[in-house]
């Protein structure tokens, strides 16, 4: 154990690099630069893009969950007005193309061929079967019904557990529905469980979710036939990865493809993919030599855009009678859906390192089975693997507390890593650099009035009040800042985890920050401006941020996994430091001083000991532009690049507390109070952080109480539109009390940790734990998510009513 407070050390380290006293921008509540344009509609969404002669694509989709395709005759569609072309897979040459999965998690993983148009078999409702190309989108949609398709039904595969019996196969050629089995262990669980005085085992279900970005997916491809060049505009989170993948799957040379992510209206992981329609649009544009557009409708997106979560979690915890954790065993089944999309199999494994969360234990055992079913493929959805893990561990901690008859917060306190113990290497092998769970919890308990609410709960229990009060806790952590490339390599991921930034110093002293991150609602333009303004000592208004175009921002790994600030933002900061290093040399030359005597502060270079000898950075920039009087042998530019490979993940944490009132007559759950104290390290812009936390909590509450994608026995998506899939609106959600503690990360010079997924990861178990807590007197141990009124009511009926 260390005597040194790692938090204080980190602050000191960070201050040496970024000089907080001279840092007026970082930490400021800046309104977002992007928003005036966005809220006044001066935007360029992919669907707004028009080219002369542009054609429109519509996609015929399978109405069957599983069937042989014996005939796809597109000829009648060609007779329809306005139709220029129609293709099945073979017509378009799509039968030889496989959509990419970049994460082969095991050497023996089953990787089914995934053509962008089904060739001989459809495997989920929504699987693409044919395309129509027409002069406008209405003609294209109308002509779909003329296409003649013969389906020979095959049995659907719906339930994961029975799918593993391999009686009916999703992919007959693979011989099994088991995509992979991925085991992982720290310590010897079987040994510790033998000595355990208490063992609690539960099965939790992570229901399937449908991501709902405000902007639907869309793609436009504009070809230049003569030079065989293609510009692909896509509502994507990953223009750089998309370009590479499009080149790899279509054979079009990478340097002939430019990908632009124009204004992108949210993604939550659903636009972190390479989709069939992106490939199809490229193939059609290539074939016809005309610009083409495809935009999904919302109900089409419900079938054809990836889904999230969908796991069966068998969790066992072993402890002593006094509540000391000994070990944790996790066995997962994860629904892949019918095919593997870009990172489908890796998503549950991102949770493998997080089930142990903030707790100390001697042993941990994890196994995940990936399973194919005849449903829409799953993939990353806000949090990706980590919400599932956090839910599992925070729910089982509450179950253990109930079993032991102790306060669930006391149980957590007893087992979490204390602030003196950082850096701490967990049983899963990750080294948490910093954290202070005590501080965040203390603040949250105070804001929440934990003791007061416990008293009210007791009273309602005694009074047999039909409205019971429940208190839910989630002391979460997460791994952010994906990711150190060597770790990704160990996990068999197909790429690195670095991020790139370039600083362009314009002659007038204005600055262009070029980033490889690809914002789609997060506010990078504002936050990166704040970082650059501080590092370069220029006004916030003088910075512009260039992103989302592989020609303008050629290098990047894009935006997902709460990585943008921790990897991309730090790359911006470090690229700025390189600018300053160069400018210092120029300033020394101009001031006729030794480089070592030139200091930089607040945007001004000055000579140690002679404060009158000084030059603002803008003058140094102009002098560099002219380069009439310049250091010998130095390149006449201050522009600088930095590609950062992070040394570690970052580990935001926090304590979320939720109080619910459950109407035991109807099953209705009302969130009475929600307190979130998050520790995301140092904060660049508090408004952006609060926005992320609010939206994140809403998304987690949505999983806890509202949303569920449901399939019937035939494999039809019965929650096929927003009428049946309950996305909560502001009027369905409570007020949140949010606050922060700030324990800086020690793994980067700004001490930041990332915040994009924190709220979603934390809130689901906080709410569900609260619902169960309200119902403990009824003997209820679980309510399947979403905790809808009917699910709550049935759980009470099944448990046998009030004790």
């Amino acid at each position, binding site marked *: 154990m260390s005597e040194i407070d790692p938090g204080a050390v980190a602050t000191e380290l960070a201050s040496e690099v970024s000089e907080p006293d001279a840092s007026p921008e970082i930490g400021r509540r800046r309104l977002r630069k992007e928003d005036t344009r966005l809220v006044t509609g001066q935007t360029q969404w992919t669907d707004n893009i028009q080219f002369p002669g542009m054609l429109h694509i519509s996609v015929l989709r399978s109405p069957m969950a599983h069937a042989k395709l014996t005939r796809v005759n597109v000829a009648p569609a060609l007779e329809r007005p306005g139709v220029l072309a129609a293709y099945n897979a073979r017509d378009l040459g799509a039968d030889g193309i496989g959509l990419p999965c970049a994460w082969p998690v095991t050497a023996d993983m089953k990787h089914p061929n995934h053509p962008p148009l089904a060739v001989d078999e459809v495997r989920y409702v929504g699987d693409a079967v044919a395309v129509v190309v027409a002069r406008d*989108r*209405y003609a294209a949609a109308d002509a779909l019904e003329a296409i003649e398709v013969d389906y020979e039904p095959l049995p659907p595969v719906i339930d994961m557990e029975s799918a593993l019996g391999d009686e009916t196969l999703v992919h007959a050629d693979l011989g099994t529905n088991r995509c992979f089995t991925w085991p992982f262990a720290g310590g010897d669980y079987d040994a510790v469980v033998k000595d355990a005085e208490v063992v609690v085992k539960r099965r939790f279900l992570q229901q399937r979710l449908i991501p709902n970005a405000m902007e639907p997916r869309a793609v436009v491809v504009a070809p230049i036939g003569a030079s065989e060049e293609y510009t692909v505009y896509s509502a994507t989170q990953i223009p750089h990865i998309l370009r590479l993948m499009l080149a790899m799957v279509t054979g079009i040379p990478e340097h002939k493809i430019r990908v632009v992510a124009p204004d992108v209206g949210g993604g939550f992981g659903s636009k972190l993919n390479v989709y069939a329609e992106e490939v199809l649009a490229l193939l059609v544009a290539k074939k016809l030599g005309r610009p083409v557009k495809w935009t999904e409708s919302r*109900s*089409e997106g419900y079938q054809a855009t990836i889904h999230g979560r969908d796991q069966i979690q068998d969790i066992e915890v072993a402890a002593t009678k006094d509540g000391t954790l000994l070990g944790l065993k996790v066995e997962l089944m994860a629904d892949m859906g019918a095919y593997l999309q870009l990172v489908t199999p890796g998503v549950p494994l991102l949770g493998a390192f997080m089930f142990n969360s903030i707790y100390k234990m001697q042993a941990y055992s994890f196994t995940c089975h990936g399973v194919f079913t005849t449903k829409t493929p799953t993939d990353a959805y806000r949090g990706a693997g980590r919400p599932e893990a956090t839910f599992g561990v925070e729910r089982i901690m509450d179950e253990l507390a109930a079993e032991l008859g102790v306060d669930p917060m006391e149980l957590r306190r007893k087992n979490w890593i204390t602030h003196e113990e950082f850096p701490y290497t967990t049983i899963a092998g990750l080294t948490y650099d910093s954290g202070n769970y005590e501080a965040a919890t203390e603040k949250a308990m105070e804001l929440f009035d934990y003791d007061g609410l416990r008293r009210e709960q007791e009273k309602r229990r005694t009074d047999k009040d039909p409205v019971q009060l429940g208190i839910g806790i989630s002391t979460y952590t997460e791994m952010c800042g994906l990711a150190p490339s060597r770790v990704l390599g160990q996990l068999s991921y197909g790429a690195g985890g670095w991020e790139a930034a370039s600083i362009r110093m314009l002659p007038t002293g204005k600055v262009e920050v070029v980033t490889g991150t690809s914002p789609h609602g997060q506010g990078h333009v504002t936050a990166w401006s704040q970082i650059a303004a501080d590092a370069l000592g220029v006004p916030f208004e003088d910075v512009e941020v260039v992103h989302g175009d592989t020609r303008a921002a050629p290098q990047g790994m894009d935006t997902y996994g709460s990585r943008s600030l921790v990897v991309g933002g730090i790359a911006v900061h470090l690229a700025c430091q390189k600018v300053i290093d160069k400018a210092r040399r120029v300033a020394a030359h101009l001031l006729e001083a030794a480089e070592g005597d030139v200091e930089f502060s607040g945007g001004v270079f000055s000579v140690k000991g002679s404060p009158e000898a000084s030059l603002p950075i803008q003058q140094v920039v102009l002098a560099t532009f002219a380069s009439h009087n310049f250091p010998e042998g130095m390149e006449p530019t201050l522009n600088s690049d930095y590609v950062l490979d992070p040394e570690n993940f970052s580990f935001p944490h926090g304590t979320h507390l939720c109080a619910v009132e459950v109407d035991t007559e109807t099953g209705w759950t009302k969130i009475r109070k929600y307190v979130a104290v998050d520790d995301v390290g140092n904060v660049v812009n508090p408004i952006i952080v609060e926005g992320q936390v609010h939206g994140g909590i809403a998304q987690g509450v949505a999983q806890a109480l*509202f949303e569920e994608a449901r399939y019937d026995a035939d494999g039809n998506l019965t929650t096929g539109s927003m*009428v049946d899939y*309950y996305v909560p*609106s502001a009027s369905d959600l409570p007020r949140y009390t949010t606050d922060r503690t700030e324990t800086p990360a020690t793994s980067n010079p700004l001490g930041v940790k990332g915040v994009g997924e924190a709220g979603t990861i934390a809130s689901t178990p906080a709410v569900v734990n609260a619902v169960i807590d309200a119902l403990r007197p009824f003997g209820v141990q679980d309510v399947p998510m979403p905790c809808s*009124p*009917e699910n709550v009511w049935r759980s009470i009926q099944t448990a046998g009513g009030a004790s």
Partner: protein
Amino acid sequence: MIPPEFEYVRAGSVDEALGALSSGGEDAKLLAGGQSLIPLLRLRLAYPTTLVDVSDVADMRGVREDGDAIVVGAATTHAEVIGDPLVNAHAPLVVLATQTVADRQVRHRGTFGGSLAHADPAGDLPAVATALDASFVVAGAGGARRTVPASEFFLDYLQTALQPDEMLVEVRLPKLGDGWGFHYEKFHRVAQAWAIVGVAAAVRRSNGSIAEARVGLTNMGPRPVRASAVESALAGVAADEASVGAAAAHADEGTDPPADLGGQADYRRHLARVLTRRAVLAAAGT
């Protein structure tokens, strides 16, 4: 997403609308606010050949007084109904229920008559009209008019007594007089969602007891249900939790609730009993 092709006629009067309806043939449909029909068209669940738009028919908009009733034009929007002084004065139950319909945008376009004539049992207004003994003024070929009581208007799921060449022009709501209290209890998953179960209650109190009660149920069968057993059981009982609760235990009698994504039938029956108790107590001011 894209509707099938159809002819569009904008009618300027009831007669014009009726004419277009009959010449449009069997698959002609009336369009008012379009809040139910347009989604069906977009999803290609309906294939009308002609749409007859009645939203401009002045005779079908607005509210007037007519003796012991108020008369609401079928094409009056929900928003207009909510703001109308006559409806507020004489049929506040309609206002309470209409305020729960979907969201502001829908209420701005959607119409009172459209919602009733669509006859979706999950819609809020059919149960209210049933509880209030509303009557439906229907115009037919040649301008003939007939009046259908609520109890005979709703026939089945999405089916009414309207013939293909008829249209609903206005709805008569009897003035209930003094001493009545009202409540609409809607149970749904999110603010904009359809009711899983809804209870429309009107209660007249006299000397602390319930003199008379009317209870209509939303989404407890293929058509709106009048909870007659509850009404009889309430007559003359004290307006307290126990007595009302005992009466409300009859709420699901004679109902045939659906089993769907919104809830299984047994849960709906249970909800009907609980929500009826709450709605009646609220309407009685207890």
